[in-house]
C-alpha cells in the first residue's frame, strides 16, 4: 500500500489510528503489528510469509545470541542469523543478477528465477541484521515476539525506511507517551511529506517520463532531465521519510532523521552526511567500522571506503550501474579525503557547483536502465553524438515545468523553513500562525487528495530497493 493513495489516507489510516488509540496500552503494539501485516499484505500477500520467516529467525537467534553472548556460541548464533537474513536478500534481489552475469561469462543459459522482489526487503533485512548484531554487542534481546515483529514490520517505516535500528526504539517499544502535541507534530510532518511526494516529486517524475519518451532530445533536455530526476528522487524519498517519521510520531515513536537538505552541501562528503542518513550510518556501524574504518593503514582505509560504497551502490539495485554509482562516490570521497576537502572548505560558490554537478551526473547514472543507456544519457549531457543544444520539446517542458522546478529548487533548501520561522516566530505573528498552520495543512492535504483523485503519475522510487 502506498502512503500516497486514497486507500491508505481515507480507509487504512482512519481505521488503524482509531483501533490504535482505543486499544489499551499493552495491546497497542499488537494492533500496530496487525495493521502492519495488513498494510504489507495489501501489496504483497504472498511475501508476508517471507517477512514472517525473517522475523522468526531474528527472534530465535537474537534470544540465543543473548543467552550465549559470553561464550563463543553467541557470535556463531549472531553470524548464522546474519547469513540467513542475507540469504533471503541475495535470493530475492541478487540471484538473477549473478545468474545473468555467470551466463554472460560462461556462455551458458542457466534459466533465471521467476521471482518478484518483495517490497521493502532491503530495509527490513537491514533492520533485523542491526537487531541481532546489537544484541551480540550487548543490547538486551526482545523477549516479546510481538514487540520484535512490531519493530520490524511497523508499517510507517517498513517499506522505504528510515532504517530504524533496534537500539533507537527498544525503549519506545516497551512504553511510550502520546499527546496532542506529539500527534500534531506528526501530522504536520506527514502532510508536508505527502505534499512533497504528490505535488512535487510526482511532477518531476512526470518530466522524467516525458524525457524518456521524447524523440527530440537535446543537451538542454538532458540537463533538464538530470535536474528533474535529482529533484524527483529527493522529494520522493525525503517525502516518504517525512511521512514515515510523522506517522511514527503519531504512534509515539521517534524515528531517526533521514535527510538534511543534501543539495546545499559543499562537498560529496557533506552530501552523504545529509542524504539517506540512516543508510549511511548503518553501513558505517555494521560494515565500515567492523572492517577497521579509518583506524588502519592508508591502503586498507581506502579499500574499506571502496567496499562500503560498492555495497551501498549494490544495495540500491542489482545492476552494474548501481555498483558504478557507488564506486563513483567512493572515488570522489577518496579524492576529497586525500586532497580536495581543504580547498572545498575554503571555497564559497564553486564547492556547491562541484557537488551539484557530480550529484546530478551520478543520478543520471543511477536512473539508467543499463550501462548503454547510462553512457548515452551522460554523453547527452555533454552533446556527445551530435545531440543539438536545444529542442522545441525541451523549451516547452522547461516552460511547462518551470514553476515546479523553481519550487523544487527552493524547497530543497532550508529557505522556506527559515522564512516561516522568521515570520511566524515573532510574537505578533504567532497568533496568526496558530490559525494559518492548520488551514495550510488542510489545504495541502486536500490538494494532494485532488492530485490523487485525478489519478496522475504516482510511483514510489524507493519501492524497488
Amino acid at each position, binding site marked *: 500500500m502506498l502512503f500516497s493513495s*486514497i486507500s491508505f489516507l481515507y480507509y487504512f489510516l482512519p481505521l488503524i489510528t482509531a483501533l490504535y488509540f482505543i486499544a489499551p496500552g499493552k495491546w497497542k503494539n499488537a494492533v500496530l503489528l496487525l495493521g502492519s501485516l495488513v498494510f504489507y499484505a495489501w501489496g504483497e500477500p504472498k511475501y508476508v510469509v517471507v517477512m514472517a520467516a525473517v522475523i522468526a529467525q531474528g527472534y530465535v537467534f537474537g534470544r540465543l545470541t543473548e543467552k550465549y553472548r559470553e561464550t563463543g556460541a553467541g557470535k556463531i548464533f549472531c553470524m548464522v542469523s546474519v547469513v540467513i537474513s542475507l540469504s533471503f536478500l541475495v535470493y530475492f534481489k541478487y540471484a538473477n543478477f549473478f545468474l545473468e552475469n555467470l551466463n554472460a561469462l560462461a556462455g551458458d543459459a542457466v534459466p533465471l528465477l521467476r521471482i518478484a522482489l518483495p517490497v521493502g526487503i532491503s530495509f527490513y533485512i537491514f533492520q533485523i541484521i542491526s537487531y541481532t548484531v546489537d544484541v551480540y554487542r550487548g543490547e538486551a534481546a526482545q523477549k516479546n515476539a510481538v514487540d520484535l515483529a512490531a519493530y520490524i514490520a511497523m508499517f510507517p517505516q517498513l517499506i522505504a525506511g528510515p532504517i530504524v535500528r533496534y537500539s533507537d526504539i527498544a525503549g519506545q517499544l516497551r512504553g511510550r507517551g502520546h499527546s496532542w*502535541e506529539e500527534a500534531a507534530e506528526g501530522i504536520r510532518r506527514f502532510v508536508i511529506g505527502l505534499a512533497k511526494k504528490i505535488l512535487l516529486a510526482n511532477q518531476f517524475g512526470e518530466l522524467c517520463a516525458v524525457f524518456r519518451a521524447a524523440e527530440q532530445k537535446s543537451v538542454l533536455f538532458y540537463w533538464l532531465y538530470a535536474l528533474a530526476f535529482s529533484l524527483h528522487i529527493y522529494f520522493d524519498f525525503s517525502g516518504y521519510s517525512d511521512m514515515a517519521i510523522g506517522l511514527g510520531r503519531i504512534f509515539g515513536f521517534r524515528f531517526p532523521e533521514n535527510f538534511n537538505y543534501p543539495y546545499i552541501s559543499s562537498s560529496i562528503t557533506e552530501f552523504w552526511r545529509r542524504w539517506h542518513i540512516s543508510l549511511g550510518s548503518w553501513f558505517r556501524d555494521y560494515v565500515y567500522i567492523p572492517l577497521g574504518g579509518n583506524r588502519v593503514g592508508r591502503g586498507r582505509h581506502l579499500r574499506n571506503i571502496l567496499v562500503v560504497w560498492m555495497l551501498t551502490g549494490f544495495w540500491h539495485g542489482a545492476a552494474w550501474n548501481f555498483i558504478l554509482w557507488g564506486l563513483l562516490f567512493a572515488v570522489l570521497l577518496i579524492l576529497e579525503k586525500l586532497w580536495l576537502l581543504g580547498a572545498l572548505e575554503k571555497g564559497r560558490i564553486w564547492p556547491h557547483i562541484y557537488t551539484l554537478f557530480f550529484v546530478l551526473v551520478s543520478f543520471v547514472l543511477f536512473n539508467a536502465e543499463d550501462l548503454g543507456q547510462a553512457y548515452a544519457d551522460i554523453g547527452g549531457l555533454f552533446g556527445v553524438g551530435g545531440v543539438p543544444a536545444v529542442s522545441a520539446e525541451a523549451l516547452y517542458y522547461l516552460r511547462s515545468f518551470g514553476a515546479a522546478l523553481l519550487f523544487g529548487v527552493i524547497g530543497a533548501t532550508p529557505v522556506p523553513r527559515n522564512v516561516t520561522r522568521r515570520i511566524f516566530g515573532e510574537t505578533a505573528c*504567532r497568533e496568526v500562525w496558530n490559525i494559518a498552520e*492548520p488551514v495550510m495543512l488542510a489545504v495541502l492535504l*486536500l490538494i494532494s487528495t485532488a492530485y490523487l483523485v*485525478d489519478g496522475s503519475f504516482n510511483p514510489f522510487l524507493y519501492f524497488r530497493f
Partner: protein
Amino acid sequence: MAGKRGFAVCMVFILLLYGGFLLCLFKPKPGYSDSERRRLAVMPEFSADSVWSGRFMSDFEEYAVDAFPFRDRFRTAKALAAGGVFLKKDNNGVYVADGFISALEYPLDTASLKRAAERFRYICGKYLNDGNRVFLSVIPDKNCFLAAGSGRLFMDYAALESRMAGEADFAEYIGISDLLERDDYYRTDTHWRQERIADVANRLAQSMGAELSQDYRIHTLERDFYGVYYGQAALPLAPDTLQYMTGEDMDNCSVYDWQNGKEIPVYDMERAQGRDPYEMFLSGPVSLITIDNPEAPAGKRLVLFRDSFGSSLAPLLISGYSRITLVDIRYIHPDSLGRFIDFEGCDVLFLYSTLVLNHSDTMK
C-alpha cells in the same frame, strides 16, 4: 508547537480524514462519469482467491479513486492548481487556449502515416480498378490552429499533409486546410462544427466532380454540448452549442446501418439527448452505413472511408450522390467489405483527421 495550535491541527486532520472515510463508506457511488464518459470502477468482489492473488487490492485501489466523494470537484481543484499554481502548460496533455480546449498532439509519427497509407493502398488493390477514381483528404485537428500561437508543442501540419499525399500516391489529394480555422471546431470537443464546413464539403464534392445543393436549414440543439475535452480538462468552462443542417435531399434520403441491421435517421435525436450529443450525426461510431438519395443523379456513387469527422460531413454530401457508403475501418476489417459494397464505378474518398492518421494502429 503551541498547545492550541497543536490541538487545532489534530482536529482539522481528524475531521478531514474521518469525514472522508465516512463519505467514502456511505455516500452513494455514481456508476458512470459523465464528464469523463466512462464507467467507474465498482467495489471488487472479496474472496480468498482475489485477496491471495492481489487482484482484490489492485481493483480496490481503482475503486477507491473512482468512487471518491466529490470526485469531479477534486479533479477541477487539481486542474486549477496545475494551471494556477504550477503554471503547467497542459494538464494530463490537455490545454486551454483562447477558450478552446485541446489535447496535445505531438510528435508527428511518420511510421503511423505510412501504415495508414498502406492500409488505404491495400483496400485499393483489393477492390478497385481503373474505373475508380481515388481521392485523399486530411482534416487538421484543432491543434493546427491553437498550439503554435499559444506556445504548445505542435506538429508540422504542412509536412504531414505533404508526406501523406506522397505516401498515398495512388490517390488524388484534396487539400482543405486553407478552408478551416479555429472557430470551425467546437470549443470543448475534438470535432468540427457541421454548420461551418459547408465550404469543405463543396471543395471535396467539386474536386470529385459532384455538385451539392446549397439550400440548408440550420437547427440548434436545445441542450448544452459538453464535448469530450470538457471532462478531460476538468475546468469550469462554458459549454458549446451544437447545430446541425438539414436540406431537402437529407429529408428524403434513406440511411441503413449495416452493423446493427436497421434504418437510421441522418440525425439521431435520441443520441442527441444522450451522453455524447455529437453521436447524433449518423448515429456515431458505426462501421458501415449506406445513404441512398433518390433525388440525386443515378449512378453517382461515393465510398467514403472516414473517422468520426466524416459523420458530420457526410450529410452535406448527400445531395451530390445517389449512394454514399461510409466505412470506418477502425471497426470493420477491409477484407469484409466485398460482401457489402459494390465498388464498380464508385468514387472513393479517404477522409481522415490527423488524430487518426497519427495513431493509425486503430485501423484494421
